[in-house]
């Protein structure tokens, strides 16, 4: 049942070389939603951020929720594929690229929100320490400025991490394609000839990147968490936030990846490449993260409740049994009660199973971000100043637009780049051929160890 190298190449290049009408319909639909989102943003920038649901005292809402959420999703790719690379888990080979792409796009989308939510977005550039004639610099004590640097570093890193291993594949496309495609891919391939020297350079570059990217990724979500933890706001000002956020990020990231893979598998007919085993293994990772997430939430809630600090209890109760309880318990269901059994029971850990669990986690993690931000602001110290928040169509349109945007970018990317790394996949096949014929699963388990 092994495929010949040529067949593999054909399979994986098919999406690039031929396009179905379904593709155009999808692009049109998603594109429309994205345009609507941009429209909503410009409307807001023109008439004032008052068209959103933001108010005194809840000054942050959907926008910052989306910011944290998307930055979280971005942790899927680079982090996962880097870890798997270093752990040298061969089963990762078909997975890494779809993962790394998620990072780049989710990050770009997430990075838009700090700008979207500004009262004067046209001045966002003041966060950049450029030599202005007023010689005014940003305030380096502000976590928002840390965000700026962390996110940009991560973005540059992930783009490099994504593109390096694409070069050989682009070369492959160059060799297969003709006409305008050939010319474009010739440029993209950067004169790759596949000489041993080039291969060696690529390998070591990838290795360095894999090591370097991990602390960057961790730092990014730690800093995002400090946007909150640094402010003395009830239930924000917490030491647990950095690891809590990073774990949550990876959690939602993996979920995002599983969903993306399921789509690719179905629509690009990659059944033979993205196999149940990949979902099974990612499912196990997801299970672990679900447990970790529950552990974090539990310890956070327990200490708050036990500490019984009045201002914190006001927030605590509003989420446990008050106005925000329905959202809170939905979150617990989506992030734990739903995925745990599905992923724990081997029989359920199928492709459908893991996808259902992942959908739950994505919803749950979005709610988690919302529940971290809004209830605390709505119940800050002096009860007289308590308030509530609900979004307007503007925030909703923009939020929906970003999900559409993610899908759209992904779709277009899979048109331009082999979504599964051809050479890495072949390498995997090759390695297996050398080793004694074994059942697919074994080496995976072994290599994971």
């Amino acid at each position, binding site marked *: 049942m092994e495929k010949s190298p040529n067949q593999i190449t054909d399979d994986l290049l098919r999406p690039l070389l031929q396009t179905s009408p379904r593709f155009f319909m999808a692009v049109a639909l998603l594109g429309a939603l994205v345009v609507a989102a941009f429209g909503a943003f410009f409307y807001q920038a023109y008439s004032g951020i008052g068209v959103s649901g933001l108010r005194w*005292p809840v000054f942050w809402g959907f926008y910052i929720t989306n910011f944290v959420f998307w930055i979280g999703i971005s942790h899927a790719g680079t982090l996962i594929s880097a870890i798997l690379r270093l752990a040298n888990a061969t089963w990762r080979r078909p997975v890494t690229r779809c993962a790394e792409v998620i990072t780049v796009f989710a990050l770009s989308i997430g990075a838009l929100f700090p700008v979207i939510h500004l009262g004067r977005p046209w001045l966002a550039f003041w966060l950049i320490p450029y030599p202005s004639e007023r010689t005014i610099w940003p305030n380096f004590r502000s976590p928002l400025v840390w965000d700026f640097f962390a996110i940009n570093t991560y973005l540059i890193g992930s783009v490099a991490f994504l593109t390096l291993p694409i070069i050989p594949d682009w070369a492959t496309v160059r060799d297969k394609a003709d006409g305008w495609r050939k010319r474009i891919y010739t440029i993209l391939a950067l004169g790759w000839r596949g000489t041993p020297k080039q291969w060696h350079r690529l390998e070591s570059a990838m290795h360095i990147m894999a090591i370097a990217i991990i602390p960057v990724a961790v730092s990014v979500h730690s800093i995002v968490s400090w946007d909150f933890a640094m402010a003395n706001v009830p239930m924000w000002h917490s030491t647990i936030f950095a690891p809590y956020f990073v774990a949550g990020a990876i959690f939602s990231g993996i979920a995002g990846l599983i969903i993306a893979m399921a789509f690719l598998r179905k629509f690009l007919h990659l059944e033979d490449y993205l196999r149940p085993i990949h979902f099974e293994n990612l499912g196990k990772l997801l299970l672990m993260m679900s447990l970790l997430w529950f552990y974090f939430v539990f310890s956070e809630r327990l200490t708050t409740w036990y500490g019984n600090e009045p201002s914190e209890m*006001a927030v605590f*109760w*509003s989420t*446990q*049994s*008050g*106005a925000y309880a329905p959202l809170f318990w939905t979150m617990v269901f989506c992030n734990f009660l739903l995925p745990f059994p599905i992923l724990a029971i081997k029989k359920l850990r199928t492709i459908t199973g893991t996808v259902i669990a992942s959908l739950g986690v994505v919803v749950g993690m979005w709610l988690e971000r919302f529940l971290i931000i809004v209830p605390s602001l*709505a*119940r800050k110290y002096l*009860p*007289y*100043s*308590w*308030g*509530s928040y609900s979004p307007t169509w503007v925030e909703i349109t923009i939020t929906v637009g970003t999900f559409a945007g993610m899908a759209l970018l992904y779709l277009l990317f899979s048109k331009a780049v082999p979504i599964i790394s051809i050479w890495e996949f072949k390498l995997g096949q090759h390695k297996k051929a050398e080793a004694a014929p074994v059942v697919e699963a074994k080496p995976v388990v072994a290599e994971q160890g």
Partner: protein
Amino acid sequence: MERRDFLKISAVTGATAALDGCGKPDVQLIRFIPEEELTPGVAVWKPSICTMCPAGCGLMVRVMEGDAEVVRNGTLGLMKMGLAKKLEGNPHHPVNRGKLCPRGQAGIQVTYHPDRIKNPLKRAGPRGSGGFQEIGWEEALEELTAKLTQLRSSGQESGLAFMTKPLRGQRRELIERLLRAFGAPPPVVFEPFDEAVLRHANLLSFGRPQLPTFDLARSNYVISFGADFLGAWNSPVAQNLAYGEMRQGRPGQRGKFVMVEPRMSQTGANADEWIPTRPGTEGVLALGLAHVIINEKLRPPDAAGHAGSLIDGWSKGLIEYTPAVVEKQTGVPAATITRIARELAEHEPAVAIVGGAPLAQTNGLASALAVNALNALLGSVAKAGGIIFSPPSTPGKDVTTVVREPRAGFESLHHTLARQKSGEASAFQVLLLYECNPLFATPPGWSVKEALQRIPFIASFGSFVDETSALADLILPDHSPLESWLDDEAESGTPHGVNSLAAPAMRPLHNTRPMPDVLLDVASRLGGSVAAALPFKTFEEMLRGAFEHFLKGKGGKPVMDPDTFWKEVQEQGGLWSDTEISFHGLGGIDHAPVQPGEPGFDGAPEEFPFHFHPFPSASFYDGSTAHLPWLQEMPDPLSTAMWSSWVEINPKTAERLGIQQGDQVEVASQHGKLQAPALISPGIAPDVVAMPAGQGHENFTRYASGRGANPISILAPMIVPETGSLAWAATRVRITRLGEGKLVLFAGGLREQIHEHKHR
């Protein structure tokens, strides 16, 4: 496009840009030569007088140079002029000593209000349709003069009525002289929360038909029966000042404050002890306290003197007012009554205050007399730390004439209405309206609208179109107070005799004229006796004349040069004695002894289970300040509501009726119904619902029109018999939930807290 057109356009835009910098002006305006010398950027302070309520606080107006669009002899243009920027209290003024209340602070918005009437208006279309057309002053004055001449020639002089807010000083003098000379009846003075009852009571008890002044700063114990003296009653700023001193002005000594009222007012919210009573039984409680004091020999009954003799059974020690009996009537525990009585007696000087709702009951006068007697018994009348009366501010004249006749107010209104109803012959032909809005502030039962409709010609001097002036045939817009010559004689709030005076703080913005000058003009046009009675070219001249006789020393010869004197009076903002004038041996007027008895209420308890308790709002007073955005957006001190009206309901009552915070409820009396959102408040008796007055204007500028509901519109036409005042607290209502409503609150606090508690 043609090159020439292009040039034209660029020329225009160029001119526009040149004219007014970056901002595009809607019209191109000419520049007027400044009328005054001002250093740009340098503020000058000019004294003035607050006219936002009758307290008469002194102002200092901060004036700075700026560019304003103004109208000068008919044309609109730009002028560099002194503009009022901020109002502060006049630090030397004996009433408010440099302080102001929120309404006083907001007073400046009257001058700059976008809906001020900017030109004389003539009615266009049917009366009350609100259709007006702008006319010139000459035409306006001619028309008014013509109407008056007509009256005189047809011998119907008594067909002229002048309806006004309470007036003091030379404005009042001018109007009264005009009417006298013309042969018309005295002015009809209209004041929504009329104080005639208290003035009348004080006349009977102490011989002073005026509002009292309280020397709280030196009191050790203050008990208020319904008087919102820290909010909008009597002289709030003076009373806040004194209250602050009573609390923390004397090291090692802090007075106690007890409040008696069925609905917690802003004042009540500050009390050390808050005692709800059944509405209308405040007088009974006062007598209950007196009973204990007399019974326990803490004071002899005759200590109360004349004030005591006005109470039935006083000399016999008020035997039928034992704590037990009083508890039954008032709902106040007997033990509390006894304790408070002892505290009152033991903590001289102790003072009792009465005002507001208790006096707006059918037994209001008796309640006032009861509290007066209690004060007399405590020996706190005309004493430091007690109740005093501001001295007459105009030498020679006696207080009684300086202060409005106590029975004026509603009496004269009823008289007017009666005349209107009693057929054409005696009906009024011409009505002049000044700064009062009876259509908004009288119960429908009095059918004031119908009465006014029947008057063939109505002219208003108002600066704004409101419910009443909408009926006018002619509107001759007055200057704003800051643009006018003002004078005033504070009725209360100070032990000093005060004559406030203010020159205009700024030049007029619009094509308006001061009401007094208009009257003088009309008088001279009328000629004859009227002109003779008012031989002044301007109101300024009249004012100066009036102040001149303060100059006369003993021998009648001036004590200083008139010009310097006149200048100094203006700089100080008026004249006042720097020594406190204290009264001794206050007189009183004989009157058959009274008893509070049972107050009468409109509506059967079975059908209308709730007492309806309207109250002057901290922001809108009686509704006359509802057009100012600062006051609309100022959170109500207790409800924190903004831009709206609301119905206060006790939590238990609300729970029983299934009413939630913010639900729309209907409040219905026998005389009408209204809708407003519910406000669940712990500070109100279960059988009482309260509503702020001042909202619910049909027609009062863009900020107040069609906003909230007007509690007066469902009041029963109950009156206090002795004075004819509206008994505005004597209506019973029922409430029903209609559904979801909208309540605009500033604080999330109250509601959220209740919510959170549920979950603990």
